[in-house]
């Protein structure tokens, strides 16, 4: 009798604990906001506002334990990295912050959180719950990187072989004698490329590296903000911000319409030693050609040397791709698997033509290569089409991250909103 009672009690306890375990694990509480956080999404998707940080939220990472680390362009209350924790309903609250430096890059890999200022890369050891152990004592991995007044951010990503890739943007528009100047020619043999205008490779675990320790992995890239490692074919992909000012520097060659459309914002699949050709060329997505830059003798038609790398995909001009993420999650429908999401921050150098961007694009991929036309995935960050056209968007998408459940997270560096997109169709 006693033994039977014990059995019942044990069984009941087991059932209760299993049930509560599932209750914790399931997404019972997770639901989209009634207005999908103001976003326009494909059918079957929903969105919620995870948090309003009120900070310049650039790139972010989300841990399987529901912690979110957000890199800020400018520290807020002395914190350059915000830490938030999610409730079961998907809403998150601020739980801490650390790192007194502004920047853009942040990445989670092999028990470390990597983050960059505009000149250095740090890493923070994580415990087995992916919580930063010593927020005030990061290891300095890279130091002394060039930083200009433009393209100063250092986006980063890691491969699976212990290497770190850092963008060092060119502190110039087109390497002119007089930057962005009226009819100012290009500097022969653009000296900027020695220490910027490319992607540098460093060791992920070696302290205090600088130019002498790193490798210029790829050059001729004006500025990259969005980049990601493609796990399918083990390759680095980057989104370049194309050059500006074709009309204001070269009004005799380019009218305002041409200057608004050209050049393309390009996705490049990189291999070690590649040269994408900045500042000597730009990619014309209408002619589908690499065209010699006007600063280097171009006339809008003359084709550049074929030795330079072709883009994998060319997108309309000036839309400012700030986030790139290969989707490997299980939540979204099959077509999204291994494809790329691209956050287009939105243009300015299209004026007086209407501005473009302020949305997140989906680029289909097959076997590690772009395959098929891109489409706008998440739109209306701007609030209204008029605000987008005027360049006065309410929110500007910047960083992308994938949650453990396959949700897509998006930062906004204008108002600091963190969005989460989920697939809701059963």
């Amino acid at each position, binding site marked *: 009798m006693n033994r039977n009672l014990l059995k019942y009690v044990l069984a009941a306890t087991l059932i209760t604990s299993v049930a509560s375990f599932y209750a914790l694990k399931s997404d019972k509480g997770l639901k989209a906001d009634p207005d999908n956080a103001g976003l326009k999404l494909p059918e079957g998707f929903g969105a919620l506002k995870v948090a*309003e940080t*009120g900070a310049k939220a650039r790139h972010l990472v989300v841990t399987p334990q529901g912690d979110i680390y957000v890199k800020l*362009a400018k520290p807020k209350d002395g914190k350059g990295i915000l830490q938030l924790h999610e409730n079961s309903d998907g809403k998150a609250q601020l739980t801490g912050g650390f790192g007194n430096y502004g920047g853009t890059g942040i990445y989670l890999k092999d028990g470390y959180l990597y983050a960059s200022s505009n000149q250095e890369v740090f890493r923070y050891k994580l415990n087995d719950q992916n919580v930063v152990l010593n927020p005030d004592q990061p290891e300095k991995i890279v130091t002394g990187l060039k930083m200009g*007044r*433009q393209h*100063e951010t250092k986006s980063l990503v890691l491969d699976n072989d212990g290497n770190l890739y850092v963008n060092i943007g060119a502190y110039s*528009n087109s390497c002119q004698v*007089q*930057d*962005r*100047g*009226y009819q*100012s020619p290009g500097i022969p043999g653009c000296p900027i490329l020695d220490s910027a205008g490319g992607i540098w490779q460093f060791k992920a675990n070696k302290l205090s590296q600088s130019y002498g320790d790193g490798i210029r992995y790829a050059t001729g890239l004006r500025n990259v903000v969005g980049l990601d490692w493609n796990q399918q074919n083990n390759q680095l992909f980057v989104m370049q911000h194309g050059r500006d*000012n074709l*009309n*204001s520097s070269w*009004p005799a060659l380019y009218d*305002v319409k041409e*200057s608004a459309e050209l050049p393309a914002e390009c996705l490049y699949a990189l291999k070690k030693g590649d040269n994408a050709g900045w500042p000597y060329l730009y990619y014309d997505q209408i002619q589908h050609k690499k065209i010699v830059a006007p600063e280097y003798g171009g006339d809008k038609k003359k084709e550049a040397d074929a030795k330079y790398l072709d883009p994998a995909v060319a997108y309309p001009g000036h839309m400012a791709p700030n986030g790139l993420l290969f989707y490997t999650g299980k939540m979204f429908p099959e077509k999204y698997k291994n494809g790329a999401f691209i956050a287009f921050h939105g243009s*300015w*150098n299209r*004026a*007086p033509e209407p501005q473009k961007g302020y949305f997140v694009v989906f680029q289909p991929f097959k076997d590690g290569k772009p395959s098929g036309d891109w489409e706008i995935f998440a739109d209306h960050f701007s609030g209204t089409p008029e605000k987008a056209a*005027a*360049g*006065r968007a309410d929110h*500007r998408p910047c960083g992308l991250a994938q949650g453990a459940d396959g949700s897509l997270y998006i930062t906004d560096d*204008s*108002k*600091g909103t963190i969005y989460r997109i989920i697939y809701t169709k059963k």
Partner: protein
Amino acid sequence: MKRILTILVLLTMGGLQLSAQTKSKAKPAAKVTKVPAAVMANGNKIYGQYCLSCHMADGGGVQNMNPPLNGTSYVLGDKTRLIKVILNGFSQNVDIDGESYTNVMAPHNFLKDQEIADVLSYIRNSFGNKASGISATEVKAVRAKNKK
């Protein structure tokens, strides 16, 4: 956040009003005379050609990149400093109303004295701005000293 922004805006406006008041007290002679329509029209034309692509049609600039032209001391304040921005360009690390702007402005010294005068008069009296016009003579004087 919205509340903080509102407070900030109110504070900034208050600050501007205060500084405007102290300025007008300090210099009662500098009364704002209306800029002629022809100057405004020519200024608008030059603005569209050389300034709009960065500072935008509404003069509001671009977040983090190109500073706004409305309500800033750079535009409404010292004329010499403003003329020098056009002649020499601008690439200093300065905060304007607490925000920093990283884009480089190239020198626009290829513009004629009259063109600079007209576009600056236009900017100082557009986008909600109200300040005295700038004459070609003033531009000429600054340009002469600027050469050294």
